[in-house]
């Protein structure tokens, strides 16, 4: 079978790419890494840190102090070892996705494993940021690890990794509630047979306490490392206050570039609350399948995150692979796919026309981010629709299934 060669081929291709000079061309690319995930800024922060200059003083470094400590001690900073490390992280993330799939299916291995792994590894939205050494790769890995441990019922590890994911990137806090619900129930698909949440919610209190304890411990560790609380406004605060208006494929940057000064704080509040407002409704509606709720919320993040890079929608799209039961019911899969096919070449093209060639202006790139936003939104709507529609099942051709 051809499928058994896909995985080794993916491995070979990914390893080969990281030894080419491709990363040199991608490191400045603003679709692949944002100010919060750029490897360039991380290296600058490490340089400043090593020269006894507070890296959080000047808006240069917006990475978590965890990255700073790891890369100044254990992990390499030069290009080639970094490329290898990032590729290894991608493999670990792909493996976690496979483990989540196995836990959902309650099997120890399946024929679909290599397909799922290669859908993660060969997803260009994920492979390119990884080649550009964007730390979004680590963010995605920590999210998938958290979901994996939660699916396998390893409470403390899951909560610890979730706390780490939140520490690395504060918007990941959206999946904290689904992870806890997942720990209380099981990852098995209940989409076809919805049920009331089977466990008393009071049992989540110790989980929440444990999560908070890990988070506080990590916060204190970071503060000790840096020596002050200054990292909080620079890292977490950046996702809320949007101090750096560097273009990215998301919806925030141009909105707040063009925002009237006296409305800025109001709309910052609206945009931040808008992200959080999805958590409860999605978790209530998908209380029978918290893993699916986490998937939907990752789709929300991949559309509306403050500093969006292509790795965020990439994670959401690759996760479609572990929910084959919804595939027949996707609402407009062709439209979504075409929108993505449309947005993917437009983004780098218009970015280049605006910033390098000077033949286009900012509106060109803004328009292509709108197309990507539409594509991500359509994917999200597909997922929500299909997740709910699965419960109806197949109907006779003379019936049409609609919402009232």
């Amino acid at each position, binding site marked *: 079978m051809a499928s058994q060669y896909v995985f080794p081929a993916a491995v070979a291709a990914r390893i080969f790419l990281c030894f080419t000079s491709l990363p040199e061309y991608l490191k400045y690319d603003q679709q692949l890494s944002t100010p919060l995930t750029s490897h360039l800024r991380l290296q600058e922060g490490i340089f400043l840190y090593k020269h006894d200059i507070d890296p959080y003083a000047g808006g240069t470094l917006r990475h978590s102090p965890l990255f700073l400590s790891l890369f100044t001690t254990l992990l390499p900073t030069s290009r080639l070892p970094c490329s290898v490390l990032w590729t290894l992280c991608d493999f670990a993330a792909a493996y976690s996705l496979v483990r989540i799939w196995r836990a959902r299916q309650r099997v120890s291995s399946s024929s679909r494993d290599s397909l799922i792994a290669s859908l993660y590894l060969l997803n260009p939205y994920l492979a390119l940021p990884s080649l550009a050494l964007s730390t979004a790769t680590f963010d995605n890995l920590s999210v998938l690890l958290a979901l994996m441990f939660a699916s396998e019922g390893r409470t403390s590890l899951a909560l610890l990794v979730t706390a780490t994911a939140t520490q690395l990137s504060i918007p990941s806090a959206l999946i904290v509630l689904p992870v806890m619900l997942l720990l209380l129930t099981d990852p098995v698909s209940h989409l076809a047979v919805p049920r009331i949440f089977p466990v008393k919610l009071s049992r989540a209190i110790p989980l929440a306490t444990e999560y908070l304890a890990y988070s506080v411990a990590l916060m204190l560790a970071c503060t000790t490392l840096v020596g002050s609380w200054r990292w909080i406004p620079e890292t977490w605060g950046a996702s809320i206050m949007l101090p750096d208006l560097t273009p990215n494929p998301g919806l925030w940057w141009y909105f707040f570039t063009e*925002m009237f000064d006296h409305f800025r704080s109001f709309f910052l509040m609206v945009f931040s609350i808008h992200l959080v407002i999805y958590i409860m409704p999605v978790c209530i509606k998908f209380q029978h399948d918290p893993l699916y709720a986490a998937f939907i919320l990752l789709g929300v993040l991949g559309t509306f995150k403050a500093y969006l890079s292509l790795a965020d929608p990439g994670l959401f799209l690759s996760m479609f692979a572990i929910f084959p039961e919804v595939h027949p019911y996707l609402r407009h899969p062709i439209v979504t796919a075409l929108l993505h096919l449309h947005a993917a070449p437009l983004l780098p093209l218009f970015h280049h026309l605006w910033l390098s060639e000077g033949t286009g202006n900012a509106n060109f790139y803004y328009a292509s981010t709108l197309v990507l936003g539409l594509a991500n939104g359509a994917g999200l709507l597909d997922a929500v629709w299909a997740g709910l529609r699965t419960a109806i099942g197949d109907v006779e051709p003379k019936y049409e299934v609609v919402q009232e």
Partner: protein
Amino acid sequence: MTPCAFRLTKCLLALGLFSLASTSASASSGPGQGHAAPIQARETFDESLTLRPLPDGRVSAAFEFKTVVRGARPREPGSLGRAREEGDVSQHYALFPLELGQILRAHAVAELHLGLRAGKWDYDAWGAPGAWTTADPSPEPHAGVGAGAAGAATGAELYAWMGDAGGGEGEGGVSIDDRWTGLRSALAGLFCASLESLDERRTCAPADAFPPSGTLPPLASQYRPRSNASGSSIGAGGGGYYELRHALQPAEHVCTENLTPFVRLLPCKAAAGLGRLLNPQKLFGADWHGLGVHVRWVAPGGGGGEGGVELVLAAQGVFDPVRLSGSYRSRDWSFQRLFDRLVEARCPVARSSRVYVELPQDVAYSVVPEPTKVEGAVAMYDLLAENAERVDVSLRYLLEKQFQYPTARPPSLSPLTVRRALHGTSQAHGALAVSVTNNLDTPVRVGYLETLPALVTLWLHTLTVTLDGDARPRNDLLTDLTYQPPLPHGAHTGPSVLQAALAIPPRATLRLSVDMGKAFLRYTEHQPDAMRGWDLPGAVFFPLALDDKSYGAGLASAKNSNETAVATTIGYRIHTPNLLVDLATPDFSMPYNVIILSCTLITLIFGSVFNMLTRRWVLVDMDEGLDVE
């Protein structure tokens, strides 16, 4: 000229307000301390004009108007918060401009340097800015400001040394930053310059590059000492300390409205003496022109005699007589040709009034009228001794019909040749490249300073130093690196300050390259005519104090390593020209459209998701109608 005129009106308004304030201030000043010496004897005024032919046919004309208030001292900063009667001495000046004196005393400024300059100073062809090519402050009395203080930074440059007695605001003192703000506003009003834009986004304290050119008076010691770890201040005994504030607005357009208040500060204005030659039509038509205000304190004893507060008003222009002569293409010059004016009468209050002319070498020339004295290659006219009227000094090259521009580049008059450029075509990132050539036969050790506004961020980890086109990095030649990252937004904004010491082997070229990111600004943060780009201030190369310890192995492997070459430093600051950085601009007409389009997309997705989450599912029988599931 419309913006010029508009600024002029604004400045006139400011001046009007200011003169109102100053009238009330002088009216309310108490009896004060009596003056032991008669005013005339206490203050002296010397003026000089130095004309220097340059190898490229141009002529540098440097005016210096020096007023000294002997025995005076800058105000004690500790007295700032106190009531007026005990706060400060009353101010009575005969020659020193009162409006400047009031500003200096109101903010207790110990040393002040203001430069309003335009054009690119060509160090290689013209040597050091200021009156003389030699960098050393000449013992001659006319050398009021050394070339070091003269500077040639393009735009409006202001720096001041201010003392803090260590008391802080709690004890009645006014903080240095508050006084800096006040000083900027007051000088902006006085000189009609946009010094208000020299705010905290451009202000820094590179004390090594801009040391005091005079002496900083010791401060009274009634306050508790303050521990001071930063290198940007100089202790002044008794717990007080001095701090520098420096800011440069590279985009300042120097114009007539700056010269008019400048001339007003002269005792004889433009009516008599050398000030007569300050013709705005000609000065601002020069290839390079600069106005400078330099105030410093000279300590009693030593070379300064009795000491006192010294004010030097300096004006310099680099004129091109070849261009002014039209089709004659002659580099002969005269007052009439350069300034379109003559010295009509002598300034009666001047102690000395002299014109120095550097005479050309190896060429036949005639200089009229006959100089009072010729010393070496310098002719001197004493306008007071001659009691001359309608003086028109002129210099003619006798055997030269047309000036031939030198075909070969003459040897550089500057110890260093500096080039600085921005590389890269992207509006998102670029690279700053600096090349420094040592023109001397000895190794040179020099300080390097970049003060860049937060529009650009240097990625310091990409800093590489190479020597003479050799690809191997030689980062060991760059030492003592200090860096202050830029602070873009929020409560604390400030420029990035990069300072380092460079060691350059003899006759070698050092190349520095560092990548940088360009900022994306909010649409309200862009200046008018945003597509033009932003001016970045030039880099500064400044003399370093040489000690053998810090000058170490940097040059061990340099060319002449077998010779024990003694390192030198440069004698004056070298400013590179400004750079223009191209920042990405949003579409300024789009705010409403963007708000509408983005909000539509967000509400579309939000609405659809919540629709799906809340509505019931139904089966529709396509033949009959609704059938609820």
